[in-house]
């Protein structure tokens, strides 16, 4: 079932663009142009609400208050105003995030996906990242069906990356988690450990990416 998204936006051109962007991204957008019309809608029927603050009829802030009173649906604010007070007020009223106009379609999609991700309760027992599964309970890593034989340092590095799957993790954070941060040589040996880890991952080595200027990332794969 496609994810339904409620868009409350009065501008015809912008609204049309957002609807197209959302449709292309596989969402099912429902576009309402008037704040008063939006009042009668049930926010719980949508996975995300994208709300313009400057609306004819009911002011966006009132709509936000109204939705928040009866639903926990994530609300993303579209704001043309570069006004901190407005943003702080919207966030204070329970908005989850905001996007300042002008924005690229990708930025809006990224924010919507972040809203959808929010109740992300990753398992504490095992995390699956693409073809790699990290089993915390049994302290083992399974890649492409086979259990890898890893040293404790390599396991700790991979666990740290898996816990933050998809996100870049700094070298400092990895050294802190898996090596002795007090030792000056630790930072250099990290690269050696990663290199060995990659060779053990074999065909899945590409999932362990080097991130320029930061460190490493465990991604879902190409």
């Amino acid at each position: 079932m496609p994810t339904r998204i409620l868009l409350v936006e009065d501008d015809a051109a912008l609204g049309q663009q957002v609807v197209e962007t959302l449709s292309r991204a596989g969402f099912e957008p429902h576009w309402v142009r008037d704040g008063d019309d939006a009042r009668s809608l049930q926010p719980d029927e949508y996975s995300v609400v994208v709300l313009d603050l400057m609306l004819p009829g009911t002011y966006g802030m009132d709509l936000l208050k109204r939705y928040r009173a009866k639903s926990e649906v994530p609300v993303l604010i579209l704001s043309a105003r570069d006004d901190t007070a407005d943003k702080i007020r919207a966030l204070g009223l329970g908005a989850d995030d905001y996007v300042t106009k002008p924005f690229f379609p990708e930025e809006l999609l990224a924010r919507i996906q972040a809203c959808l991700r929010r109740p992300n309760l990753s398992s504490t027992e095992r995390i699956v990242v693409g073809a790699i599964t990290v089993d915390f309970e049994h302290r083992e890593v399974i890649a492409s069906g086979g259990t890898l034989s890893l040293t404790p340092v390599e396991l700790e590095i991979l666990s740290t990356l898996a816990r933050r799957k998809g996100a870049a993790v700094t070298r400092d954070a990895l050294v802190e988690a898996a090596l002795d941060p007090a030792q000056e040589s630790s930072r250099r040996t990290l690269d050696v450990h990663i290199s060995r880890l990659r060779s053990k991952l074999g065909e899945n080595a590409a999932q362990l990416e080097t991130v320029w200027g930061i460190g490493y990332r465990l991604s879902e794969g190409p």
Partner: protein
Amino acid sequence: MKLRARLALTLGIAAVSLLVIMGWAQSRWHSRMRVDALAEAAVHRMESGGRERCEANPEGWPTPRRDAESRRRAGPRNHRLPPHRLFAYDSSFQSRNPASPVFPTELAQQLGTGNDVAVSRSDDPRRAQVAVRMPWQEGPCAIVLMRAKGPPPWFSAAVLMPALLVALVVIMVALFAAGPLVRRVRQLTESVRRLGSDAEAPIEIDGNDEIAELGAAFEQSRRTIEAQLASLRDREAALRNYIANTTHDVMLPLSVLQGHLVSLQQRMEAGETLDANAIVPSIEESQYLGSLLHNLNAAARLEATEGLAHRNTVNLNTLVERVVERHRPVASRKQVALEMAVPERAVELEGDLTLLEQALGNLVQNAVRYNKAGGHIAVVLRGDSRSWSLDVIDDGPGIPEEDRDRVLKPSFRGTEARTRHPHGMGLGLHIVSDVARRHRLALALGETEGGGLTVTLRPGLDT
């Protein structure tokens, strides 16, 4: 009514009232004295031959002529006696003279209780009556009744004339004394009236009285209004300046954008096959326009206030994420890798969300804008809320060491910042520098290992 006339009238009325009250009090005192005088005069007259004449002719006594004569004669204490008439009665209050009135009961009662003199003071002073029991207490002339007649003395010209004279003098003095006062009030009125046409003329009233105080209060208000007006004019000028600068700054990238689009259209018309990358400069320029407007807005707000207008808890992790996602569309089209890393626990600081986001956005945007295809940018947040650092690292062209201090100088007033970096980089960095200063953050520009710019923000700037 004018001030001077009102003052004179008030003082005149007060003087007349005071004199009338004094006259009335005096007349009361006089009338009391008169009773004694009348009583003594009656005894004196009867003893000096009056008794004999009365007893000799009780039916006709007193003769009107003698009565008039007696009025002119001075009494024993040299009191001028008021006009009065005498009537004689025996000890049982009966008169032989048919012209005599019936003896007043009130006086009879007073004499009956043993008094030798009885006085009747009615509200009308003209009806004052005095009865005196003579020492001999027998015969038809044992009791003498005296009746005053004529107007009460306090209506006399003797009281009214001085009252009128004093009132007149008081009014004259008041009119004369009010002169300088009135002149000062008029002077103040003129000064205040002039305010309407020339707000810069000061209001000056000499002296240390209430009028001078009033003048000083007016002058104080005038200065306040003058200052407010000046501040309004300054703001208006700043706004005009802002609009002019904004227009100028926006026209440039807009022209570039139009140029890109027209060139694309012409190349397509000429039958040239364009790859998708050809449109990237237009996209970048349009994004730059948006961020330029945000920067101009931020600059205007920073110029309008000292310190921070808003102070809330800002989550730097989400801020970094939001800024990176905002610039990723342009970066990826330019084939510049834009990455970020934040610690697991949120780093928080107190500050202005919009300004911090704008500042970080400027750093990232500059890194994207001046980088080339295949370049890298990393935004890295480290540490915790107490001690953190935020690096924007790129492998672009960097900024020569000798220029680094200059581009951070926290001043974007005038056009200096814009002309120095025609494409707006200056304005962006100045905003970063100013926002950092206001959040007491240290801002450092350094060189990336292997070339490029690394900008670091961290708490702990000593002002």
